[in-house]
């Protein structure tokens, strides 16, 4: 498939005005659980091609090659609190020989076209067709109106994978525009349809969003040990306000979600940030996600699976996120990231150093310390560290 796509795109890239760029990234991680240590990492090459057959048209794609090393076979049970998996896999009354101690997940090497799209700029609107990165919302760590992506709290600004879609951005006047997105599914009902209106009012930006799609979630049936996909119609009505108060940035992003055969839920993020004279930057966010579980006792394995798959933005309902960064010098940045689950009282603290070693070469080192009981979302891990080297070209 990649070969065919590249063969089709090759003449455009050869004869159009083409840019080649991308990055190489190498990462090594170590994660420590109560009785397990995971060493793993990957080497990744992202190669972007961007052609401009004329002033109005951009054709872009990127090829991603990612090869994992060291521990590439993970046991899902290590990432779950014991009171979630024991009743299913190691039930009381069953002899230990019959217990299931492994739920393997393999980190498979990947070689894929992440984005491949054509963007045309017409006089009164832009049209982008193809697999493209779509990032919605104003929140930093969570985006209630973003039905396409779910962010990693340890690394919320990492790029997201592409979405097959047709998107039209229609400017009305200076700060007002309409954004129409159609992400095709197997049929019209399963396709994601979104309409977003953006405008400005004084120092504030306002967004209103309405969307409808078929929400697919993974469901594990413990009686038959089967995984299946549960589908439900989801209608989202949301919006966002971004502005500032006394020099501090403030934002509110929220969505009300109407679901077929399930309770409606609301998801809201409120955040603020401030940059001090000395360069110290602080950002804080609070998430309230009614789609999460309020009490730890009510969690089940499907809540975890759906969260791990990125099908829901959080496992439980109430979270705090904070990040501060301070420039030690022009090339070295110290950061302290932290997030906490307010429902089960678990948290993570993550000091980090970002170092621009050379032009276009960045080194990031981070340590994570997890707090909370063994049967909590973050307390299930003890600690971890990560080294990531990225060289752009």
């Amino acid at each position: 498939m990649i070969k065919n796509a590249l063969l089709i795109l090759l003449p455009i890239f050869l004869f159009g005005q083409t840019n080649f760029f991308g990055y190489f990234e190498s990462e090594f991680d170590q994660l420590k659980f109560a009785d397990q240590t995971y060493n793993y990492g990957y080497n990744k090459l992202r190669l972007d091609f961007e052609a401009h057959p004329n002033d109005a048209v951009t054709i872009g794609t990127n090829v991603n090659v990612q090869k994992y090393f060291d521990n590439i076979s993970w046991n899902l049970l290590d990432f779950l609190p014991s009171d979630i998996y024991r009743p299913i896999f190691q039930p009381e009354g069953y002899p230990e020989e019959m217990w299931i101690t492994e739920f393997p997940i393999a980190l498979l090497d990947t070689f894929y076209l992440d984005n491949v799209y054509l963007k045309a700029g017409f006089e009164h609107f832009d049209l982008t067709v193809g697999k493209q990165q779509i990032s919605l919302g104003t929140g930093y760590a969570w985006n209630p109106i973003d039905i396409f992506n779910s962010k990693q709290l340890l690394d919320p600004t990492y790029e997201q994978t592409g979405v097959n879609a047709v998107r039209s951005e229609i400017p009305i006047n200076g700060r007002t525009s309409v954004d129409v997105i159609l992400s095709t599914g197997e049929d019209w009902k399963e396709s994601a349809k979104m309409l977003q209106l953006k405008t400005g009012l004084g120092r504030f930006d306002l967004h209103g969003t309405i969307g409808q799609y078929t929400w697919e979630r993974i469901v594990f049936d413990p009686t038959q040990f089967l995984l299946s996909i549960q589908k439900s119609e989801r209608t989202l009505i949301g919006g966002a306000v971004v502005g500032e108060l006394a020099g501090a940035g403030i934002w509110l992003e929220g969505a009300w979600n109407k679901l077929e055969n399930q309770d409606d839920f609301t998801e809201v993020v409120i955040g603020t940030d401030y940059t001090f004279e000395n360069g110290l930057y602080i950002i804080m966010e609070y998430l309230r996600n009614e789609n999460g579980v309020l009490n730890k006792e009510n969690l089940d394995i499907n809540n975890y699976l759906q969260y791990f798959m990125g099908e829901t933005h959080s496992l439980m309902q109430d979270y705090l996120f904070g990040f501060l960064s301070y420039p030690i010098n022009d090339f070295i940045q110290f950061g302290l990231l932290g997030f906490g689950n307010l429902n089960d009282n678990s948290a993570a603290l993550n000091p980090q150093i970002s170092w621009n070693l050379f032009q276009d070469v960045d080194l990031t080192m981070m340590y994570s310390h997890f707090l909370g009981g063994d049967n909590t979302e973050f307390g299930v891990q003890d600690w971890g560290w990560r080294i990531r080297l990225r060289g752009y070209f």
Partner: protein
Amino acid sequence: MKNILAITLVLATVVIAQEAIPTGQELVKKMSEIMTQENSTAIMTQTITTSSGKQRTFEFEMFTTGEGEKTLMRYLKPSAARGQAFLMLNNADDIWTYFPRTKRVRKLSSSSKNQKVQGSDFSFEDMGSGDSWKKEYVSENLGTEKFDGTDCWKLQSIGIPEQDPSYPKMEVYMRKTDFYPIKINYFDESDFIEKTLLMSEIKEIEGVPTAMQMTMENHLEGTETTMQTLSTTYSWEPPVNFFTERELKK
């Protein structure tokens, strides 16, 4: 009679001399007329030199309109910064930034206005405040002084606190011949020269004196940033709705 004539001559000379010395506000007006054109576009490099001598070089394109009231900057090089863009409206009171890797636009709060752009010694305010300083400062002509062998007017501008000026005080050395500034000292709250901007390689571009090189020296951190203009024009007409999120994301 002789005495009366002498006094009259002296008075006349004083009047002529007084008329020939422009006031601070007149200098600001003259300087503003040549420094802020209605529209401009340029491709520039930005070389940051740290106190240890390490360098990083960026290349960006910059578009301005409304005498600098609206500015759009987009980085072309190096690869790590490629496509990152800033839209500054209302003289950098409102700033949006675009990250091409995540395709996200974020609005920056005004507390970040005086922060470094890409780690350089230029702040967002330095880059995008246009001629807003005309109303943020009270200026006084301190007289004539030579800088780098050039006769200059020395202008002192004191910030009006209610106008939220970028710096509490500035000193501008402008050429007497055409009122073009060649050196600006920026002071901090303790009246220490925090930064110095040096403008050199001044050429006539479409009849407008233009510094092809600007160097900002940061005396607090021992760093400096040099911006070299590779190409520029003042005859560019911005398309309708150019200074919007749509263009930011291109």
